[in-house]
């Protein structure tokens, strides 16, 4: 009775799958490493305005310049190397004249990174290196979980038709992204006229929020949890249990999908009002992704180990 986790390599893993997994892990881990440094280096920037004496203000400004350049040195590899799958995906989408989830992500990264580089270069204005690196690290974490979940169920449906679920998730994510990009543009324009100094932060927060990582994880994680139950029980699943498991899988996938959508819809007005800073938007995004993974993995807990019939635990 093997203990299966989301991260266990699936039986019959090919060399290509192993390589993809290692690359995803390397990008994710290095993004977290860079993020942790940049968050600390961003600290003096948040002290601006709280200083009383002119002398302290001068030395704080000097420190901020130094910190900004160091952050830039750390953030550039995060954006160029770690976020590479985003650039590749966005480019592929645009070349086919489609809008996938990589497009708003790429827009969000660019909208925060380029003005920050400019602010560092000219030594004027706010930098968002911490938000950029957090966004990339959290996004890659969600993607890594999704890669593991997809690999866990690859090539073996186990007598379950997941196509309708995946299709409805894709359709929902597509419309969500389109509406969110339009909304980010409109709200950004409004803020540009009303209060230009906040326009960038609000737009970036909305673009960060528009990343449907949790939604694109919702079905694969539920399927991989179902697969884990099947592997654990071996061939001992009765017909009754198998049906109960399928029903629970569909229910959990729906919960994930609609729960993450509701979470996004709840946060979007707050971001549009300017109450959500970009870094906070990145954290809420991570929270929803992790909640989706945890909810899916509840399936393995509900089903309960041991000889007791599954149907009771799940139903």
């Amino acid at each position, binding site marked *: 009775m093997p203990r299966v986790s989301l991260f266990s390599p699936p039986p019959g893993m090919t060399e290509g799958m192993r390589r993809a997994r*290692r690359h995803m*892990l*390397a990008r994710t*881990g290095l993004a977290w490493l860079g993020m942790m440094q940049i968050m600390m280096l961003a600290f003096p920037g948040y002290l601006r305005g709280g200083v009383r004496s002119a002398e302290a203000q001068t030395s704080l400004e*000097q420190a901020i310049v*130094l910190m900004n350049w160091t952050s830039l040195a750390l953030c550039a590899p995060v954006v160029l190397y770690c976020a590479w799958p985003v650039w590749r995906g966005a480019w592929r989408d645009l070349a086919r004249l489609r809008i996938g989830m990589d497009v708003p992500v790429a827009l969000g990264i660019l909208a925060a990174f380029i003005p920050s580089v400019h602010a560092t270069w000219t030594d004027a204005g706010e930098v968002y290196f911490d938000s950029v690196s957090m966004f990339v690290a959290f996004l890659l974490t969600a993607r890594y979980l999704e890669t593991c979940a997809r690999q866990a169920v690859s090539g073996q449906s186990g007598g379950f038709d997941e196509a309708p679920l995946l299709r409805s998730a894709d359709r929902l994510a597509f419309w969500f992204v389109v509406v969110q990009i339009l909304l980010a543009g409109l709200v950004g324009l409004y803020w540009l006229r009303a209060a230009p100094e906040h326009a960038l932060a609000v737009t970036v927060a909305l673009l960060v929020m528009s990343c449907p990582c949790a939604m694109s994880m919702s079905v694969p994680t539920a399927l991989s949890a179902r697969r884990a139950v099947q592997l654990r029980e071996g061939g001992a699943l009765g017909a009754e249990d198998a049906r109960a498991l399928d029903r629970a899988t569909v229910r959990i996938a729906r919960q994930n999908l609609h729960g993450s959508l509701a979470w996004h819809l709840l946060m979007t007005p707050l971001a549009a009002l300017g109450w959500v800073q970009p870094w906070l938007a990145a954290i809420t995004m991570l929270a929803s992704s992790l909640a989706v993974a945890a909810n899916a993995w509840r399936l393995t807990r509900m089903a309960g180990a041991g000889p007791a019939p599954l149907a009771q635990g799940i139903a």
Partner: protein
Amino acid sequence: MDALFLLLPISLLFVVGIGAAFWWAIFSGQFDDTQDAARAILRDDDGPQS
């Protein structure tokens, strides 16, 4: 303040070093299956050596 000019590059060097070590560990396969090492001791072959 002047100490920062020394400390920041040193911390950058450390970050690069740690990143390189992490990269090496991943691509030498140490994170491929974290449960494999624990399972391996149960799998060893105690039969007569040939």
